[in-house]
């Protein structure tokens, strides 16, 4: 209480010190949140692909959107030893008129049968409505990811237009911070229709309309996905497989440079934030050398005098941290809101980042205060009193 009162009586100085700390912590929060977002995108994908094998046409090396497969390949894959479930799936971009790169995951439509929870490890929960079930097959219903729902302004029960067809929104997913947020899930048949419309006529003629873009394979629980993938490639003609490990390798390497940049930026913001805390705090404590001299002269012990100042320094650090965090959160939510429509959600502020920022500014504030306070308290009081 006394420390708080002392701060309030030194308004200008305290405000400037807090401002210095605020800027540092603000930078720290914003850049850490950017690094968080990139990490969670990669981790989310990694989690989704873990323990799965994605089977695609062999001509498609990326394992993402590619050449079509006949849906019947799913039956062939099911027959392979170690495969618990093989699910045909189509995936296509949500709006073919949009082009170009987007940060994070692109908006897509995924069509496929519902997968029993015993197979699917990636947890989806619903903010509104329900998930797709077997009885939806054949009807035009859709479950929207959270970002997509927000962008379309759609809620469960609404009707939306997708590629010229009307769909009923039966559910909206809770945010996952990765691919499902920008995905529209539809039943397999309607997905296949959309997919077939997109195929060049020559391909459609050859394969018919019963085509899918990939088959998602859930290996039996005691099987190594990598081994299962090898068996699938060996026994089914013309397919390529992608396992979680390969996903990590592929995506990991393409993201790693970006990630390194972001981590670098976060590290710089840590240093900048840290130095700004140290600098402002050290200055403001040094200015009080004379006060320390007074307190020492009238009988304040070194420990006690230092403790009083360090408590104030910690409080300044905490206040600066709170304001920096609040401003950072504000900037992040504004930037995310502005970016959501173009699919450019850049930041993710986690509880961990917030707690770290507060602890960082408080503890660093105290550490930065303790050094000049201690050196002033070590002076003989007469010297400290002469300090101007």
């Amino acid at each position, binding site marked *: 209480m006394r420390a708080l009162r002392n701060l309030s009586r030194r308004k200008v100085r305290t405000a400037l010190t807090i401002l210095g700390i605020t800027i540092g912590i603000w930078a720290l929060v914003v850049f850490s949140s950017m690094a968080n977002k990139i990490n969670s995108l990669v981790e989310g994908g990694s989690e989704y692909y873990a323990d799965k094998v994605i089977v695609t046409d062999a001509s498609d090396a990326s394992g993402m959107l590619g050449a079509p497969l006949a849906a019947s390949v799913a039956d062939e894959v099911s027959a392979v030893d170690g495969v618990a479930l093989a699910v045909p799936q189509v995936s296509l971009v949500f709006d073919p008129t949009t082009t170009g790169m987007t940060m994070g995951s692109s908006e897509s439509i995924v069509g496929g049968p519902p997968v029993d929870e015993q197979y699917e490890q990636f947890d989806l929960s619903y903010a509104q409505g329900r998930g797709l079930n077997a009885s939806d097959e054949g009807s035009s219903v859709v479950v929207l990811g959270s970002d997509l729902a927000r962008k379309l302004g759609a809620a469960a029960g609404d009707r939306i237009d997708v590629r010229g067809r009307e769909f009923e929104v039966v559910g909206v997913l809770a945010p996952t911070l990765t691919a499902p947020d920008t995905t529209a899930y539809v039943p397999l048949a309607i997905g296949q229709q959309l997919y077939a419309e997109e195929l060049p006529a020559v391909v459609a003629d050859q394969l018919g309309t019963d085509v899918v873009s990939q088959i998602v394979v859930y290996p039996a629980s005691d099987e190594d996905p990598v081994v299962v993938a090898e068996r699938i490639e060996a026994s089914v003609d013309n397919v390529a497989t992608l396992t979680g490990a390969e996903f990590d390798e592929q995506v990991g390497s393409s993201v790693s440079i970006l990630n390194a940049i972001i981590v670098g930026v976060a590290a710089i913001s840590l240093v900048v934030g840290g130095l700004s805390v140290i600098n402002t705090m050290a200055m403001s404590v040094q200015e009080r050398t004379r006060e320390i001299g007074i307190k020492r*002269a*009238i009988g304040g*012990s070194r420990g006690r005098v230092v403790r009083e100042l360090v408590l104030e320094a910690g409080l300044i650090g905490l206040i600066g941290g709170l304001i920096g965090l609040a401003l950072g959160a504000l900037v992040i939510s504004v930037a995310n809101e502005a970016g959501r429509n173009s699919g450019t959600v850049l930041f993710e502020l986690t509880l961990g980042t917030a707690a770290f920022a507060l602890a960082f500014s408080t503890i660093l504030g105290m550490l930065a205060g303790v050094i000049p306070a201690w050196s002033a308290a070590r002076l003989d009081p007469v010297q400290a009193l002469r300090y101007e």
Partner: protein
Amino acid sequence: MALLEGRNLRKTYQLSRRNTVEALRGVDIDIEAGEMVAIMGPSGSGKSTLMHILGLLHAPDRNGAEPRLRIDGRDMTQLSDRERTRVRATEMGFVFQSYNLVPTLTAVENVALAGEYAGVSARDARRKAREALGWVGLDRRSDHRPSELSGGEQQRVAIARSLVNAPKLLLGDEPTGNLDSKRSTEVLAMLRGFNRERGQTLLLVTHDPEVGAACDRIIRMRDGVIAGDDPGTIGAGDQPASGVAAA
């Protein structure tokens, strides 16, 4: 036995590698309980250094003849910093030329701080602080901060702070140095009053002849040694100094 007893007090300051100043060249001094003593002398004579050593703000040099510094018979030269701080808190009071109040604290908080450093609970320290401000006639200004007080008022707060723990010795370093003659006379009368009424022992370093005149005894310093030790112009102190009558 003298309240304060100093022998062989020396202090050399190292200004640079080659340049040293011998501020005190061996001072022997005794102060009796209840005395009001002025230390006078030109600038650089060592009077402030002597006060700082007697007030345990500086330690005397230990090279050469072994110094001795006793308060109430207790040796002070062997004390640790912590122990000296404790003695400053409980047995001494300081009044400085530039008041040296903590700018963010109100008058009563400044005075209470000295009580807290002496180990009194915050609540009792505050109560005693209000009482001490009453002694110096500032009970109505106790919630003002130093910047809201005049120089004379600030010095009275400092006096209240120096007295709040009932110290054995009150040390003043040019206590009237920053005050105009009217305020100076008031402050001096106040100090004299505490000496008379409570037997407060006072040791005042000063340039001000008026201060010297109000004291029982004047120690004159020159070039780091005591050059003279005389009774003040009012002798043993049975006449009030000029300011006291007005107070």
